[in-house]
């Protein structure tokens, strides 16, 4: 039976971040945390492989204790178990330290046949963790995976879709897959699944449970420094139309025609 680990991350729901009308700053307070939307495709792909080939699927995340919620969500969808890497000693990690810590977690669980990740997380947009993770584990990595074609004799064949090209590519297992948005249609949990998962326990691993070099985790192991976070300046100007609906529609049509959009 295949062994699959799927990586998930709890992120702030950036679609609900509001702009302060006065300062134009992002209001982040009270923004709910969600499963990174890209990871939903990773979870779904793991579950589809499980249904097709038979597999045990473990969801793995690193984060504060409340990150347990995303593991429970994954378990509600059908993932067999959840593992949380949680320790103050992991905090402040960039992608390199994060991927290193995750690799130590994966070694502790046991390197599976396939590690599936979402393309990237919506809070950082770096897409670096999957490839770095493969390096730490010294295994192959396929990125931009848009279709898994077959798994046979220790090899996985997949389609990788980039901006201007498509590759049919195979990799020796174990391997890391970073899957694209749209590779599948992520399922939604049923009420009964959510009720069941609320009783399931996750395993929590702390820094002392893992065999790792403490200089390579948290801030100490992070060569990246964020100098400044700012909202990009928009040079597009909106226009609010006045008048009756018919007049407004007429105006919209006129503008669209001017720009040869219709």
């Amino acid at each position, binding site marked *: 039976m295949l062994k699959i680990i799927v990586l998930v991350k709890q992120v702030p*729901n950036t679609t*609900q971040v*509001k702009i302060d*009308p*006065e300062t134009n700053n992002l*209001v982040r*307070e*009270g*923004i*709910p*945390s969600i499963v990174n939307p890209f990871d939903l495709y990773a979870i779904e792909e793991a579950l589809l492989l499980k249904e097709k080939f038979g597999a045990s699927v473990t969801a793995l995340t690193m984060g504060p204790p*409340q990150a*347990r*919620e995303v593991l*429970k*969500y994954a378990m*509600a969808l059908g993932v067999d178990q959840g593992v949380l890497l949680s320790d103050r000693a992991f905090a402040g990690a960039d992608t390199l330290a994060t991927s290193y810590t995750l690799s130590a977690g994966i070694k502790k669980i046991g390197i599976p046949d396939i590690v599936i990740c979402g393309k990237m997380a919506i809070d950082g947009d770096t897409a670096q963790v999957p490839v770095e993770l493969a390096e730490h584990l010294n295994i192959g990595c396929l990125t931009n995976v848009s279709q898994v074609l077959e798994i046979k004799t220790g090899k996985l064949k997949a389609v990788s879709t980039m901006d201007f090209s498509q590759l049919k590519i195979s990799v020796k297992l174990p391997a890391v897959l970073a899957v694209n948005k749209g590779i599948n249609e992520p*399922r*939604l*949990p*049923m*009420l*009964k699944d*959510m*009720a069941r*998962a*609320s*009783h399931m326990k996750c395993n929590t691993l702390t820094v002392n449970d893992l065999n790792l070099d403490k200089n390579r985790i948290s801030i100490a192991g992070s060569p990246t420094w964020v100098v400044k976070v700012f909202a990009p300046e928009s040079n597009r100007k909106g226009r609010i139309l006045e008048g009756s609906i018919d007049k407004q529609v007429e105006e919209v049509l006129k503008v669209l025609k001017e720009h040869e959009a219709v």
Partner: protein
Amino acid sequence: MTKTAEIVIIGAGSTGSSIAYHLAKKGVKDIVVLEKLGIGSGATGHAAGLIRHHYPSRELVKMAKYCSKKLENFQEEMDFDIDHVKNGFCYLTSENGNSFVDMVAMQRSEGVDVEILEPKEVENLHPKGPINTEGIGYGLLDYDAAYADPYKVAVGYVEKAKHLGADVRIGVVVKDIIEEKGKVTKVVTNKGDFSTRLVINAAGIGAVDINKMLNIDMPLKYMSLGHGVLIPDVEFDPNILTINDGSSENFLFFLRPESGGTVLIGMDQDDSNREIVPESYYMDVPFDKFGKFYEYLIKRLPFAKKFKIQTTFGALDLRTPDWNPAIGYLDNGPEGYYLAIGGSGHCFKLAPVMGKVIAESILNETTSFDFSIFDVNRLNKFSDDSFSGSFFVNEK
């Protein structure tokens, strides 16, 4: 530049926009409505939209009855579709039906079509499957209950108010209210000042901040409800009745049809250990707590166990200790400062009457309803620690 306005209304939720419409309809000119984010963007836009009648006091029942008719005829009267659906509503409680005989008699005397159901009748009430009646003392069926889109109600009022001459401004943040010799004189905003003799605070959850500008402190508290949009595995007609289970102390919920064949649920959250950030209406719906909620819900309504959870969101309200809104001028407050706040989760369904009686009271007319139970000055007798109960239980 300072503009002049007869009346400045702060907030374009269902309350503020209804007040604007009713005042404009009575011929008041120079009404300015100032809205920080968007029409109905606060509690209104996140409300459940339930319209029903079974309140414990006669005054409230009268008002609820009036509102229910007004909302039913909203499209005709206001020329604006609010997605009104009459579907009926059943409240489930652990208490014995006998304790509510008088209340039901009073509601019937006001023309409310309401019935007490025995557990056996409750069991077969829902068209999608039996209701588990364990722990249910009785059900109270409100035949004429309905639901509608609260956001559209606010927009409907705003559109009509604008048509009647009201000046509704979006993206305007009130920074200060100036008081001179015990009278309000000016509203200071990020988009200019408005000199006026009358300011109506209808700012919903922002009302506390507006009060602070005049150093007014009242016993008010934020409360939040968790909501979920579900995709049923069976066809779910829009006119299937709403179930509101108030029988458990820990898990209070409602379940009603929503547009597009989906289902809306609302869950009471105990926020005693959570810090609420009023600046953000979007509250977290924590899994650990709601997993147990879902478990309770499908035990009560087994037909829902395969319903899929499409999304969850929170709603924030400002509540008073007795769950009634706080309306009127303060006895010891500045002249020209009128409050229409503390909706406590009720004010969407009361929007038509709120606008009506507030407009009448501001214009010193005889009010169509006795709304003394909403008198803002009653809050003096409460202290900050007099809050108790939960939304659904106290709503009965």
